[in-house]
């Protein structure tokens, strides 16, 4: 790709002053995974390291109790 003139991304969780990410908050977690169920990388979402750690831990917990999928087949 020719241009890398991207906007500076700001951590969306910092913007909202999030202090802890709850594994039960499906609606929030869904924003940070792709349809397939993968966690969106920091370089794409622009999250800060601290919040990304909170997120990944929460997503992984949510997966254990089937709130979120490990893998989702979005089409067949």
């Amino acid at each position, binding site marked *: 790709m020719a241009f890398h003139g991207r906007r500076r991304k700001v951590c969306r969780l910092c913007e909202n002053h999030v202090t802890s990410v709850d594994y039960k908050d499906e609606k929030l977690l869904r924003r940070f995974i792709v349809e397939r169920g993968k966690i969106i990388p920091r370089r794409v979402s622009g999250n800060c390291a601290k919040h990304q750690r909170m997120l990944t831990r929460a997503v992984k917990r949510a997966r254990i*109790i089937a*709130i979120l999928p490990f893998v989702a087949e979005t089409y067949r």
Partner: protein
Amino acid sequence: MRLYETTFITDSRLPESEIEDEIKRVEETINSNGGEIVETQRWGVRRLAYEIEKQKQGYYAHFLYKANPEVPGKLETGFKVNEKIMRFLTVVSEIDLEERQRRIEAGESPTPTIEFEDRRRRRFDDDDDEDDRRRRRPRRHHDDDDDDDRNDRRGGRGRRPANDESKNDSDEDEE
């Protein structure tokens, strides 16, 4: 004592009384080991994100409690041998009890709701500029792929519409 959260999923086809028994059993285990239950939540029947034991839904119960460190272990050994429990999870709770109490008294929901302003999903810029289009394009390409499968089945191999073909080609060149 520490603050823990335990969630279990049980078979939603069980009669209500049996589900209640399971919930009571957990509560008794906590209480008889010197723990203190803050709240028991019955989330009820929920869709599972993936099938567990061939089931697409399950009954969720969630416990927030203070207990000594040996209590979660006791609960979990109980869950492991209990065939009615499909899945369970215990975590050291990050909930701030004082904060929670304050919120309840103020009539708010006990957990803070995090609302982001409305933006389209999987867009991380405010504007719809060059880099968005570039980033999103390959995805659209994958979606097209799926549709093509249907076309393939209908029309046989290699009989895609000509303009479709050229579009895909140009996309691939870019990547």
